[in-house]
């Protein structure tokens, strides 16, 4: 596939009549609907929806776990590992549910360790490398602010298991947000260097946050059936939280512009494959091993 020729759709079939307006270069504007026909897709929209929820958490949880033993101070090392474990625990519960919905006998481990990057449904924001502590912190904050709003609505899911997972996860997410927001304030309103690094992190990551609020047919079906929630409905609430914290942190909110997308249909940055190679190596070398 040729990155240089985006008009060809990068292996991704487009029907303008069905998918709505596209911007120049073949990228999609907010409100457009990318096709869900990319490889690795399932024909079960409920399964797809729950896997999207799970993969955001699995990938971000693994990214955070990479800090273990490397965080700037011991207390934060433990805090990052705690958050990682919360997210991986949520992912495990969600993947188990997804496996049940799919009904093909795939366990949470099978879904976590034996899918390739193209079958992952997380947003690209969470797969980006950790960068410095500011990048990790800002990425976490942008995600947490979204996650709390999402889970507050997901507790009313028509699926009792999903509602239960959301209720437990919401308590965890509220603490994650309190923690990451406090760190954004400390870095932004800290020294000249921490401010510069935090602003650079905000500028780098801001475009990737756009994908959190994109919806397609999978989301629409999940909203209609009562299984899922409409992420587009709480973008203004998210902005309010994010802008308030950035203001407290003396950081500048970047303008909205081009937003990378495609994670929800299996189009990822090069970073996810490398991360999965690391994350999945043990399970693939010793399939079925228990410890």
């Amino acid at each position, binding site marked *: 596939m040729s990155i240089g020729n985006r008009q060809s759709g990068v292996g991704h079939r487009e029907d303008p009549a069905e998918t709505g307006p596209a911007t120049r270069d073949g990228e999609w504007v907010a409100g457009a609907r990318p096709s869900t026909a990319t490889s690795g897709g399932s024909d079960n929209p409920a399964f797809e929806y729950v896997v999207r929820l799970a993969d955001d958490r699995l990938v971000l949880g693994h990214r955070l776990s990479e800090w273990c033993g490397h965080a700037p*101070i*011991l*207390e*934060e090392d*433990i*805090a990052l590992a*705690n958050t990682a474990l919360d997210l991986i625990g949520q992912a495990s519960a969600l993947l188990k549910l997804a496996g049940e919905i799919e009904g093909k006998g795939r366990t949470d481990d099978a879904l976590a360790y034996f899918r390739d990057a193209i079958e992952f449904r997380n947003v690209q924001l969470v797969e980006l490398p950790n960068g410095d502590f500011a990048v990790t912190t800002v990425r976490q904050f942008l995600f947490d602010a979204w996650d709390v709003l999402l889970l507050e609505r997901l507790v009313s899911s028509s699926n009792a298991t999903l509602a239960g997972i959301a209720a437990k996860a919401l308590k965890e997410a509220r*603490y994650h947000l*309190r*923690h990451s927001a*406090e760190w954004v304030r*400390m870095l932004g309103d800290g020294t000249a260097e921490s401010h510069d690094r935090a602003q650079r992190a905000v500028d780098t990551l801001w475009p990737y946050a756009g994908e959190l609020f994109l919806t397609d047919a999978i989301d629409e079906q999940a909203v209609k059936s009562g299984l899922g929630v409409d992420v587009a409905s709480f973008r203004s609430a998210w902005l309010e939280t994010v802008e308030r914290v950035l203001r407290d942190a003396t950081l500048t909110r970047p303008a909205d512009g081009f937003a990378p997308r495609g994670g929800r249909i299996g189009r990822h940055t090069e970073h996810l494959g490398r991360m999965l190679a690391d994350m999945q190596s043990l399970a693939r070398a010793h399939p079925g091993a228990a410890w």
Partner: protein
Amino acid sequence: MSYRPSRVTRLDSMSDHTATTAGQTRTPNETQWDLWEVFTQEGEGAPHEHAGSVHATTAEHAMQNARDVYARRGKVVSLWVVPTESIVASAPGDAGPLFDPGNDKAYRHPQFYKVPRGVRGL
């Protein structure tokens, strides 16, 4: 996070005869955040017990670090964090005058007294 009791405000020994002016000699350390002592309570009505210490820049930061280090495992219903330098400690040399238990006077100890049958909730 290492527990360093030397950071508390320690009173000089009484034998120095300078008792009340002690402890203000902490050297500022530019590379370390302030130390906070953490107390956890495991149930309503139970005492807050010393769990350890954390480094932090503010009270909120100390509370979060205390939660992450000491309150994530096991049952904790309440947390206290206190700047370590706010704790005033006795001098080790005063153990004799301060803590001589007076074991020869058994009636000083509550265990000396028998609780009458029928008294509950004591």
